[in-house]
């Protein structure tokens, strides 16, 4: 009887699905670091960036991440020849800094790391970042130093071919990395995060530092 065969086939198919589900089903565990660059779409096998200590060049000499121990550090990778993305991101960061209460703000530091150290000297950066906010320091370094720090934090950049006048643009990722007062990378805010979102991320870190 065709109806019976069909029914049997259906039952068989449903059982197969049930067995497959039973074997392979794993409830999705809560993501431990939910804010690690959701826009980065890292391949599943890639470990989240480790972050950590670095030493780069400021206008007054070496600057280390550990110089800011006790503060929440917000790190952005960009370049001063950038006409739009970097000024926009730094304005959002500056706006967030000015929305914090003074007692919160004194425990926050912004860092702008140049992905174009060829043109962005530490002196040039000193002219650039305070325009947005006095609490954002600009850091440069050798190409190798910058590449290492970018890799540590999961930032990406790619210099484009220069034109006839030697002008070039640099493609770059546009996340803001959030480092807790112990110097640990806790997550990354995606490109175009609003001042409200940045403020929330800072307060979260300040609160969890206070509760420890």
């Amino acid at each position, binding site marked *: 009887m065709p109806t019976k065969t069909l029914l049997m086939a259906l039952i068989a198919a449903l059982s197969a699905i049930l067995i497959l589900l039973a074997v392979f089903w794993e409830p999705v565990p809560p993501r431990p670091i939910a804010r690690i660059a959701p*826009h980065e779409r890292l391949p599943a096998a890639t470990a989240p960036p480790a972050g950590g200590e670095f030493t780069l060049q400021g206008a007054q000499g070496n600057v280390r991440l550990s110089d800011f121990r006790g503060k929440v550090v917000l790190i952005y990778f960009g370049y001063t020849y950038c*006409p739009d*993305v970097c000024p*926009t991101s730094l304005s*959002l960061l500056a706006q967030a800094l000015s929305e914090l209460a003074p007692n919160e703000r004194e425990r926050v530091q912004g860092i702008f790391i140049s992905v174009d150290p060829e043109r962005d000297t530490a002196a040039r950066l000193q002219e650039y970042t305070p325009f*947005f906010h006095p609490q954002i320091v600009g850091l440069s370094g050798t190409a190798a130093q910058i590449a290492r720090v970018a890799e540590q934090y999961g930032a990406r950049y790619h210099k484009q071919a*220069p034109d006839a*006048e030697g002008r070039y643009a640099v493609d*770059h*990722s546009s996340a803001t990395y959030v480092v807790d007062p112990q110097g640990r990378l806790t997550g990354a805010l995606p490109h175009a995060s609003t001042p409200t979102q940045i403020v929330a991320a800072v307060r979260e870190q300040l609160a969890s530092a206070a509760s420890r």
Partner: protein
Amino acid sequence: MIGPTCHGCPDPTSTCPPEKFKAMKFRSSAITLAAALAMPLSTLAGEADLTVVAPYVRMVPPGTPNSAAFMTIANNGTSDRRLVKADSPVARAVELHSHTNEQGLMRMRQVSAIEIKAKSRTELKSGGYHVMLIDLRQPLKEGETVALTLTFDDGSMSRVDAPVRKPQALLEAEQASAHGRH
């Protein structure tokens, strides 16, 4: 986006001959201020279908060589138009650019034209299309206006005075307009 090209490819037509704009440069500030306040701006020669709304140039930190101009271009006509060229006396090179966000990587590329469909509008805005001002001849100061000449595919030209705006002021304006929409 129409025909993206490599940012490195120089466009020989994009450099503005300074003598052409000498007269414009020294217009009285009262006129430029009045023009800046009169929005939407339209100074099209013979073609009233295109209107440029709310143009501005981003103020950049001292010593910064590049900036960008943003605006909305409305096409009230019945045929599609393309912005094919922009000129300005303030920069040594002016290019039409797009931005794309490719899995978090922000890529800026020169485009040969920006399309404004019939009965539609195209926004040149932060993170998207912009008129890139490359190698500024002088620092842009807040309160000044930047003269831009836009050329469209039908040969019509639009003269726009775009005020220089601080990023912070831009942000507040954006927040205010976002708020206003609700």
